[in-house]
């Protein structure tokens, strides 16, 4: 088969099951470091009526559910689907860690507790 034929947009016809291959998987930043687990996906309908994924919802939302409700959509921490670069045993993205809003808890622990203990910002000796 000649190499110059155009590629079908659905890469090799790979079929993904959102429940099996996306939900609860580990999300990685551009350096391959863990971000959070994927709790949900947000979808939208295109003009042609097809459903497409618009963003990934970060975190399991368990704490909210524990108190009896789903988190209001406006307060959900999400990441745009465009950032996804690879879907594997983990989901890789090209997101810069500092730009991910959902990581404010991690930044809080880093800046106010762990980073303040002597040695917290050095490699283990």
């Amino acid at each position, binding site marked *: 088969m000649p190499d110059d034929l155009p590629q079908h947009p659905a890469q090799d016809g790979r079929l993904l099951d959102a429940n099996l291959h996306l939900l609860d998987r580990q999300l990685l930043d551009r350096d391959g470091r863990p971000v959070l687990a994927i709790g949900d996906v947000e979808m939208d309908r295109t003009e042609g009526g097809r459903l497409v994924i618009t963003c990934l919802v970060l975190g*399991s939302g368990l704490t909210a559910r524990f108190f009896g409700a789903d988190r209001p959509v406006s307060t959900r921490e999400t990441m745009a689907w465009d950032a996804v670069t690879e879907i594997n045993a983990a989901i890789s993205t090209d997101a810069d860690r500092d730009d991910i809003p959902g990581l404010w808890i*991690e930044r809080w622990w880093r800046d106010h507790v762990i980073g303040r203990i002597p*040695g917290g910002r050095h490699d283990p000796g």
Partner: protein
Amino acid sequence: MKKLLGVTLGILTAIGGFVDIGDLVTNAVVGSRFGLSLAWVVVLGVGGISLFAHMSGKVTAISGRATFEIIRERLGPRAALANLIGSMAMTLLTLMAEIGGVALTLQLLTGVVPVVYILPVALVLWLILWRVKFSMLENVAGLMGLLLIAFVVALFQLGPDWGELGRQLVQNQPTSNENGLTYAFYAVALFGAAMTPYEVFFFSSGAAEDKWDSTDLWLSRVNVSLGFPLGGLLSIAIAGCAAVVLLPAGIGVSSLSQVVAPVGVALGVAGIVVVLVGVLAATGGAAIETALSCGYAIAQYAGWPWGKRVRPAQAPQFHAVLLGVVVVSCLVMLSGIDPVMVTEFSVVFSAVALPLTYFPILVVANDPQYLGEHTNGPVLNFFALIYLVIVLVVAVAAVPLMILTRMGA
């Protein structure tokens, strides 16, 4: 040459790392009451932990995903949370027992009451978790734990009636003055002591810390197939020493001093000191491993960064969990609760919690999406399924047996 060194080190640390406070106490209790008639359970447990550790090490090495990430993916957040709570309660209980074990050992070495040592031990433990490199703490604890070979030397020095020990080995049933239920209870406890879930969290997360990939699978095979069985041999030697010295004298084991007493009988004060340093390393090493396992499991469940290969500030929640579990365990042990009793509970509940982690790992070890060509073969699956049945039976039987026999009393 460097590879050979790595392999040797791996085996040695697996031997030293196999035995912890649960194995020490349970094997000595069993040896003093049933002789070697329960040694078959140690063999069964070693087979199980080897299989389980190898499968989870393999999953991590190939897919790069550690045990609790996989449990979350397979079971969903709610079922996985229940699983996490069960496994963590168990591991925390073991951590408390190990801290108590370190304090008891220091008491035997110095004569000062153990409660005095709890705070300094917890502080040193946290400092090690905070600052020491993973490879360093893995190797030092494992190598010093090898001093427990003193139990093997002591057994030979005692010059036992090998024919009698051999008869106990093949007897596989309770002696005349013990009933069947108690025998079954201790079989469960011994199985739980040999096959603790934290060893698996540690083994698989450690594989990620050491950056294993598919070329390191043979290392996993060698470590588990040589290191764990030799660790099991140490366990049987502990039971054997108790069977030779304590069983005929009718002495039951209720403290750490009785666990090491047979070594004193055989090898004198020097032997006691050597074996106590070994116990110190084994329990201290296990305290490090259990604390890390809590951090690994919780961070992996939540999807946070984790591990000792990065700076604490790069895995802040992981280190917050480590700090938290050390503080909680320290406070509980400061209450003066008996570490030996905590240990006995921890091995039984370890048996209860085991299927929670064993089953998802077995499923994923057969999933080509995670493992490609390295999925379980038919032989491995055959044994893994047999162990699934055993693990389930033991988990269901554990609590009823504990109640019926009043903790084997």
